[in-house]
Structures are given as C-alpha cells and as structure tokens.
C-alpha cells in the first residue's frame, strides 16, 4: 500500500480529515459554552437577579472560553500522553479514556462556579436549584467530551505526521505541527475558545437571551438584565438555549474554525510542494483580499437591504 499511494495524496487526505474534525470541535465548543452559559453573555445571566429577574439558567463562570477550553484540551492531552507514551496503551483506547477522565475535571469546575456564584447573590434572592445543577452537568460533560475528543485526535494526527510516519509514508514536509501533544492541544483549545467566544456567543447573547425584544436592532442598555425567562413551554433553562443556538451560532463557529485551518494548511501545502516559502505569502495575501471583499459585500448588502434605523415602528414584542 505504501508504494501505490504518494505522500501528497495521503497528505491531502489527512488535511480533509483534520478540517472535518475541527469543524465538529468548533461546533461543540460553542454549544458547550451555551449549555453552561459561559463567558460574555453570562454577564447578563449574572446581572439578571440584581434587576429582579430570577431565572433558571446555569451560571457557569469559569473564565473566558479560551482559557477554559485550553484547560480541558490540555488535561486530555496530558492524560493521553501519560497513557500512550508511558504505558504503551494503544491510542484508540487511550484517547476516549483520557477524554472521559477530563469530564470529571470539567464537571467539578462547573459545579464550583454555579454554587459559588449563586451563593454570592444571596441578597438578590436567587435560589440554588439542585435539579438545574444535576440536569445540566451531564450535558456539559458530554459536549466537553466531544470537543476534547476531536481536538486530541487532531493533535495526535498532526504530531505523528510531523515527527514520524503515517502508514509508512513521511509527510512531514506537507502537513503537521512538531509541537508536543499537551502543548499542541492547549494551543488548539485556546484558538477554538477564542473563535467560539467571538462568533457563537453573539447568537446566544444577542438573539436567544433577549428573544422578547424586537428583531432587527441591537439590545440597548435599558433592556440589560431583563432576560427572557419564559420558554416555549414552561420556564427557560440552558438546555432550551443550546437546542436553539446549535442550529446557527454554533454551526458558524465550527465553520469558522474549519475555514481557518483549511486556509493555513492550504498555504503550507502549496509552499512545500513548490519548495518556495514566498508562495505562502502570495497565497495568504490573496486569501486576505478575498475575505475583505466578502466582508465589504455583506456590509453593503445589509445596509442597502435593511435601511437606516426607524423609530416609532409600533412593534412592542412579548415577554
């Protein structure tokens, strides 16, 4: 098999696999931050009891998403390297095992955040709901498991591609990062967190958390804290949130991460095939120009189609 397949074909296949895995990683990363209400929109969930809106959301305030995602992916990478390099346990078994053990760390930090934050809101009257805690924790762990599984798989593939051989072929010229696996998983986790935080969180904070305000305008500061607490049936919790946001916001976050790794590795590919690193620079500038033009088109289209802000439209919206 090693004679019939050229290294370039194998590298193209590895690239396609990496981009697919990373799209799933970005998707689940933003979904995990929605189900636990982490990072930027969490400031509204934190503010709500202070203005009198008692809610049933999960208030997971660990830190910004890049740092906490780096933590889970790094923990999974650490346990994986300890098992794989230390005790020679086959990667197909040690990858899921390390991701499973990481969910214990993840769920512990989520629990401490919820208990600590709600206990410090004693004077506003927000109760600790034990059923919210116990029903959201397995979901948080499951989404974190998917993120760490895919990112760890990508780290393992790129590390092996750059330092040793895959199916007896040496593709280290074309693809791969020669960074040790815990550090590589940490870096990929930080990138995933910053992408999910900047893109997917706007769908959660801007649309789902304030669904009762009028569509088509930003949320002015007079609405701050008065979040939507009634759901399609009953009272809203974070499981309803992730049901909604995983359809658009999380998908765009995954697409973003996949596009970034695709562009980067495509540039590396072209430069290595022709042996000139200056080609990387040329392709990079071309990609930047393409993205700039796409952004300009979207901005001009939206301004032309939606028009300037009109007051007194008469829409009130429900609560």
């Amino acid at each position, binding site marked *: 098999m090693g004679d019939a397949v050229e290294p370039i074909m194998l590298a193209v296949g590895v690239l396609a696999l990496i981009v697919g895995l990373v799209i799933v990683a970005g998707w689940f990363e933003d979904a995990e931050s929605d189900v636990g209400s982490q990072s930027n929109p969490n400031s509204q969930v934190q503010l709500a009891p202070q203005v009198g809106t008692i809610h049933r959301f999960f208030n997971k305030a660990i830190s910004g998403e890049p740092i906490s995602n780096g933590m889970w992916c790094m923990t999974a990478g650490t346990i994986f390297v300890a098992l794989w390099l230390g005790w020679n346990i086959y990667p197909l078994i040690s990858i899921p095992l390390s991701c499973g053990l990481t969910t214990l760390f993840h769920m512990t930090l989520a629990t401490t955040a919820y208990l600590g934050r709600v206990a410090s809101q004693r004077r506003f009257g927000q109760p600790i709901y034990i059923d919210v805690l116990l029903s959201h924790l397995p979901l948080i762990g499951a989404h974190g498991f998917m993120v760490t599984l895919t990112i760890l798989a990508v780290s393992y593939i790129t590390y092996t591609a750059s330092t040793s051989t895959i199916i007896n072929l040496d593709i280290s010229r074309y693809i791969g990062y020669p960074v*040790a696996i815990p550090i590589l998983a940490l870096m990929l986790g930080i990138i995933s967190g910053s992408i999910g935080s900047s893109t997917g*969180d706007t769908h959660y904070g*801007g649309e789902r958390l304030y669904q009762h305000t009028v569509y088509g305008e*930003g949320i002015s500061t007079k609405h701050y804290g008065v979040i939507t607490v009634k759901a399609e049936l009953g009272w809203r919790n974070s499981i309803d949130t992730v049901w909604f946001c995983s359809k658009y916001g999380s998908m765009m976050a995954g697409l973003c991460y996949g596009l970034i790794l695709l562009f980067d590795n495509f540039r590396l590919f072209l430069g290595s095939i022709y042996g000139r690193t200056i080609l990387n620079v040329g392709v990079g*500038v071309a990609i*930047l120009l393409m993205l700039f033009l796409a952004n300009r088109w979207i901005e001009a289209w939206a301004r032309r189609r*939606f028009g300037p802000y009109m007051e007194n439209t008469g829409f009130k919206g429900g609560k």
Partner: protein
Amino acid sequence: MDFITVTVILLAISTAGVLISIGTMLLPIGGAPAAMFTSTGIATGAEMMLTGSGITGILMSAALFREGGLIVMVNAGLSSAIMMSTVMLICNLLAVYGRGIPPALYTREKDPVTGENVKIYVTPGTTGHGIPTSCFISGVIGAFLGGFGGSLTFIPVFRVLMIKSLGLTPSIESIFSQLVEVSGSSAVSSIAAASIAVLGMFLINANITAYAIRGVIEGWWDPKFKNAPRTALACFLASMVFGFITLLFIL
C-alpha cells in the same frame, strides 16, 4: 555566546512586546457588550482575542521551523491576520442573518475608510454593532502585528535552544538563517520550551494593554488609542524584564 548576540535577542524580545501591545490596541474589541450587540467589535476580551490569533501564528512558525528569519515572521503575521479576518467575517454574518442588524460605528459620523454615513444605522441606546469596513482593516493590521511579534520572540528562543542541543555555539547568522536538515522529532523539546516563553509574552503584554483599554475599543480613530504610547512604553519595559529572565534560562 558573545555580548552582541545577547543584546540582539533582548532587543528582539522587547520590540516584540511593543508590537504585541500596538497590535492589541488596533483590534476592534467589543468585550462583553458586543455579545449583546451593544457595541462595535468582536464579542470577546482584548487579551483573549490577541492570544487566540497570536497562537495561530505560532503554529505556523512551528511548522516552518527550518526556514529563516523574516519570511517566517511575515508568514506568522499573515496566519494571524487570516484567522482574525475569518472571525470578523463570520461575526458580521451572525449579526446580519442572526439578528438582522447592519454593521455600524459609533465614535465617528462617517466611516474613516469608505467615507459613508454610518450614524443613521446605529440603534439608539447602543454604541454600534457589527464590524464595519474600517474596523475590519484595523483588525487585520492589529492581528498581523501580534503574530509578527509572537514569532519575533519564538524564533530566537527556539534557535538558541536548538543550536545548543546540536552542540554548536549560537550567533546572529545562525539564529536568523535557514537551518540545516533537522528532523521534526529532534526539535520537539526546543519548540516546547519556546512555546511556553511565547505564551508568557502574549499573556503579559496583552493583559497590560487590556488594562489600559478597559473594555471597548474600535480602532485607530478611537479616543482610547491616545493611550498607545504610554502602554507601549510599559510593555517595552515589562518585556525587557521578561526577556532578561528568558535569557537567564536559555543561556
């Protein structure tokens, strides 16, 4: 190692700190309010966004570890810029199709680059939303500077450790030129140590700049950008202290 090489490395690390600081101030950051479409820019903290985009540049530097000097730094800057522009494009897509809002600035009546009137598109009660064209350009330049600065720290630290592990003495030419054929597996320890140093650099400089920004900044025309010289001086001095400690370790 002679005195000139040590000084060059120390200057490189200090300059990298200045570049990272200016890069952070150029990024269009909206902070927590931007997640609710209450301010222009990207909906995350300044230090987080710079660390995310800078690390994309470091991955590219690690992949190109055999090449020399300037071309690696430009490539790393381009990687960070591509990451930032993809993120900004998707942010705009989410604003337009997720919530039905056109991008708009707040601190100026007309867009500084295209000259269009943007005040009419701003929702009252907010300070802008989305990422207009001038914020996009500011973000691309800022991310490029951040990636360039990160790579400027990564290359000297990595090369000194690598050359010492090969048994030779480091000099300025060997640090910034192409490396003789080295396999990936022998470079792993040096890349690991250099990555920790670069992570430290990003976190320190971006955090000091984030304290000076205090939440929201739109680009080079924002009034908060007047703090840039003072912040760049603080980051220069802090990076010099950090570079001194790094030199103690790698020599």
